[in-house]
């Protein structure tokens, strides 16, 4: 019996950790030979400063809408079975997961590529913000992916058109600085 293709997008408030197993189970299916996951967790340092915690907020209704649209774009570019994306709001302590993306597909290339696309697009366009809290201050972070994309956002450029550019991204991009730090306002 084939399981239906499903998409789940959740923005989670409150102080509970993301239930990773729930989302993995959600996308699991007998015909999906591959499950790819990405988990974003709070790091303990940024540029030498000790991070106490991250605090997240979102324009929730738009974020859900955007995420669903990004999932549709992923489906039109790769052969996928199911998708689940969960993002936590509020305080996320060091080591805990703030965002979880999981994709199932028949074959691993589709699952892995779609998983990368989903998190890259989330970072470029979904209205969620995080404040990095140190022992001596706090700053709102800015995703480089958004800064590169912002001039196009209001125009009629569908995110699915970026698939080819995204797929061609330098594989070492995770080592490049991803965020720009703004000085905290006193």
């Amino acid at each position: 019996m084939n399981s239906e293709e499903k998409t789940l997008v959740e923005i989670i408030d409150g102080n509970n950790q993301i239930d990773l197993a729930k989302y993995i189970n959600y996308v699991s299916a007998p015909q999906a030979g591959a499950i790819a996951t990405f988990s974003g967790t709070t790091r303990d340092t940024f540029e030498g400063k000790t991070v106490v915690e991250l605090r997240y907020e979102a324009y929730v209704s738009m974020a859900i809408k955007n995420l669903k649209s990004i999932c549709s774009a992923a489906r039109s570019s790769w052969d996928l079975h199911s998708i689940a994306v969960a993002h936590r709001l509020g305080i996320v302590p060091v080591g805990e997961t703030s965002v979880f993306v999981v994709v199932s597909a028949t074959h691993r290339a589709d699952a892995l590529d779609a998983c990368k696309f989903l998190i890259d697009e989330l970072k470029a366009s979904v209205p969620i913000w995080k404040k990095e809290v140190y022992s001596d201050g706090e700053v709102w972070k800015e995703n480089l992916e958004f800064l590169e994309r912002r001039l196009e956002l209001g125009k009629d450029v569908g995110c699915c058109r970026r698939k080819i550019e995204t797929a061609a991204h330098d594989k070492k991009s995770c080592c490049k600085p991803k965020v720009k730090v703004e000085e905290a306002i006193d």
Partner: protein
Amino acid sequence: MKTKEDNLPAVQSVVKDESFVQIKVLFFAKARDITGLTELSMEVSSGSTTQDCLNKLVAKFPNLDEIRQCIVLVLNEEYTTESAVVKDKDELAIIPPISGG
């Protein structure tokens, strides 16, 4: 006097002023820190663009000018440009640089 015919809405006794529109403005993250508000209701002249609305907001909250060059505007949950025209009951959101994930 209210009348009702078939399925037509009842005629309001107050004539609506068509020269102004009322919009809701939402502030997030740094924009909220600057204004001290999560939202406000604003009246602008009919035909105003999102840029006109932003100008009015900066006039009211001059510190918004610090982030003006890096914000993006959202109208009714869709990214928009500064030339988009706002309509009555629209929801305009001030979106500072995002940092999800």
